């Protein structure tokens, strides 16, 4: 049977067909839909972990227990999971273990565009790179076989275009006859004390040698000879762009990008006149090919930054005089000049909006974090001063109050979401209290991991399978860490929120404020509730624009093409959160009767 699947859906299908028993992940674009789709298949214990390190450790435990385990994360998630990953390379596996790293060249939804192929080389483990959804499924299955055959974790790297791109996939039945999981004692392999690890390291090097040999004859590394004047080594999505832009060129399409198949590369190089590498981001393949003593060109004509596309590849080769398939002589249509942009924004009724408005009014220095609330950076709120990585706000707030003069210390406010706080914020708060940094932390508890599309987390009270479970008591957790001042505020009450933040900013000790209104997108019954809607009394509205300062998409300025006008509230978008009403000095906004 054929279906059109995204790369993420195909990986989930591949995991099912490979007989995976345990799957776990922390949500992160572009990887999130893998676990969301895995739950549609029977026989897989699928769960959200609080962070990627825990996810990988759960995967390792399942693998050591004899089950096939899949762990998924976005590229920066592998930074969090790197600690167990590097030693897992030494122990190897029992049941197959596959780590999906979903990279994001072009940073469509990320804070950097690190190239995680480097992790495979660094941790000395094999890395497969599919080029479409069919390969996402096939390579996932192969990855489990290689993991067991070579006693190694295997990384499978997608990029945004393979994760979210869709193409036709042929479905198959799941494998049968896998060994039953059971406890196995094998200290020499599984207890990585120096004495044992010293024995394992040479085995890892030997494994890399054998994997490279495997790659020389593996079907996933495919030489396609066409015109032998131009030979291009490529993999993943860039393979598709090469086939589009240079349909006549010969290609060596690598399915396994680490370790590289040296003999096959030499064979290909000998068959073509000029050798090129087309890869996104780092010169990962190119540098190794050059180190083999071969003459090769790659990043001289292609950027180290951003995604490639058929057009970019065509232009690069046309620029060095190589004929390409599609290049336009006649001018292309242009976009009309000065079109207003359309950046994403916080939803109408979002509980974060009032908090950022209050922070801006108070002149706080906002140490931000990763989530929907990062949109507080955008105008008109423009209330975020830093954003680095998951959980960083807490430690950075501590560091900042250590550094800046006394009169500036009180301005420092960390802002973090519930899911991000549980991910890697707790340790930072422990440090803030332990070392008595007088910063303020606001936990925006909207009861969901919102930015990635509403995933449950340990503070939402439900699992990935929608089963009710324990809900982390955030105030109690903060108190247990030693915070003496923990207070709850209603973020829709601007006066209450503003005065609570001001009081805690002035308090010369660590303090935590927790907001308690849920995300408007939560569909679970009884969590988010729409209040009676608001409307503008046009006779009372003076056109002062005070209500526009919160950037609510339900708040319109009419007429749309004039400077003079009045506010209007779109009844289809308004949730009745009441924040705009509190900004109107003329009493022009009221609840609909």
């Amino acid at each position, binding site marked *: 049977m054929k279906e059109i699947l995204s790369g993420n859906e195909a990986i989930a299908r591949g995991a099912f067909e490979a007989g995976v028993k345990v799957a776990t992940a922390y949500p992160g674009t572009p990887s999130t839909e893998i676990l969301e789709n895995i739950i549609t298949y029977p026989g897989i214990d699928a769960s959200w972990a609080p962070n990627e390190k825990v996810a990988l450790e759960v995967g390792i435990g399942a693998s050591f227990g004899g089950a096939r385990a899949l762990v998924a994360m976005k590229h920066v998630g592998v930074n969090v999971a790197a600690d167990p990953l590097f030693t897992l390379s030494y122990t190897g596996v029992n049941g197959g273990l596959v780590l999906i790293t979903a990279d994001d060249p072009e940073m469509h939804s990320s804070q950097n565009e690190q190239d995680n192929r480097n992790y495979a080389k660094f941790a000395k483990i094999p890395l497969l790179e599919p080029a479409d959804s069919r390969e996402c499924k096939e390579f996932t299955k192969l990855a489990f076989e290689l993991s067991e055959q070579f006693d190694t974790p295997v990384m499978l790297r997608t990029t945004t275009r393979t994760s979210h791109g*869709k193409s036709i996939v042929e479905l198959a039945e799941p494998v049968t006859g896998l060994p039953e999981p059971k406890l196995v004692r094998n200290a020499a392999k599984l207890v990585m004390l120096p004495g044992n690890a010293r024995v394992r390291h040479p085995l890892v090097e030997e494994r890399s040698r054998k994997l490279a040999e495997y790659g020389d004859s593996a079907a996933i590394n495919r030489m396609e000879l066409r015109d032998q004047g131009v030979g291009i080594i490529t993999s993943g999505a860039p*393979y598709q*762009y090469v086939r*589009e832009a240079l349909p006549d060129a010969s290609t060596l399409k690598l399915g396994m990008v680490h370790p590289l198949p040296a003999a096959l590369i030499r064979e290909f190089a000998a068959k073509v006149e000029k050798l090129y590498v087309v890869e996104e981001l780092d010169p990962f393949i190119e540098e190794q090919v050059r180190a083999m003593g071969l003459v090769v060109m790659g990043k001289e004509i292609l950027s180290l930054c951003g995604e490639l596309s*058929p057009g970019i590849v065509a232009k690069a080769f046309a620029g060095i005089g190589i004929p390409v*398939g599609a290049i336009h002589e006649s001018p292309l249509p242009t976009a009309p000049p000065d079109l207003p942009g*359309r950046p*994403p924004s916080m939803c109408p009724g979002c509980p974060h909006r009032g908090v950022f408005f209050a922070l801006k009014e108070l002149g706080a220095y906002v140490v931000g974090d990763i989530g929907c609330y990062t949109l507080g950076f955008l105008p008109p709120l423009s209330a975020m001063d830093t954003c680095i990585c998951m959980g960083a706000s807490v430690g950075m707030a501590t560091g900042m109050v250590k550094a800046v003069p006394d009169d500036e210390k009180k301005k420092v406010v960390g802002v973090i979401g519930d899911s991000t706080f549980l991910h890697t914020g707790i340790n930072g708060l422990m440090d803030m209290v332990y070392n008595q940094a007088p910063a303020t932390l606001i936990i925006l508890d909207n009861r969901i991991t919102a930015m990635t599309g509403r995933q449950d987390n340990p503070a939402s009270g439900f699992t990935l399978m929608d089963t009710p479970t324990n809900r982390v008591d955030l105030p109690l957790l903060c108190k247990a860490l030693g915070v003496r001042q923990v207070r709850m505020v209603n973020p829709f009450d601007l006066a209450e929120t503003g005065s609570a933040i001001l009081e805690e900013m002035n308090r010369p000790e660590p303090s935590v404020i927790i907001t308690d209104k849920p995300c408007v997108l939560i569909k679970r019954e009884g969590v988010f509730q729409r209040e009676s809607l608001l409307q503008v009394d046009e006779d009372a509205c003076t056109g002062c624009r005070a209500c526009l300062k919160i950037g609510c998409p339900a708040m319109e300025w009419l007429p*749309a093409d004039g400077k003079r006008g009045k506010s209007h509230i779109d009844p289809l978008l308004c949730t009745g959160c009441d924040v705009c009403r509190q900004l109107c000095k003329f009493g022009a906004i009221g609840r609909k009767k």
Partner: protein
Amino acid sequence: MNSVTNILLVGVGGQGILLASEILAESVMLAGFDVKKSEIHGMSQRGGSVVSHVRYGREVFSPTVPEGEGDILFGFELLETARYLPLMKPEGKVIANDLKIQPSAVLSGQLSYPDNLPELIRSRVPDFLLVDGQKLALQAGNPRAANTVLLGAVSKGLDIPQECWFAALEKMVPAKALEINRKAFRMGREL
């Protein structure tokens, strides 16, 4: 040589663009073509600009439409239709819903929504059809079927049998909305 048909579906996050592009991709697969589709999830879901690429033919490589190769631009909103014109062939076809959704800088009165977009679009890609999707959808029985009206209009220029479209609608649309969507699709196809 290039036997691939390139379609772009553009609009605002939340307008149902992804569903429409899934129906389109399913229809062309049922008609026996190879098909690839690409879009970006994530930040764009929060009311941002959305573009979905659908490509079909005997064999498709890149999931994204190369610049200047677009055959059909299917616009769910006028400003977004104008924004993605550089992906189009000058002789391509633009089919857009006559709908304006104000972006944040217009809502807050900082910028104006361009008032002559249909003319600006037609001057760049002359083959331009403006459709009152809401009005036709209302006639079909549900204002929410506007996307299906537009999809019907797009289908006219494609070599896909009607039964493939209807089979895709049946798979992707909830059963209770199926009849209205069939009707909306036919109305678009007759434009």
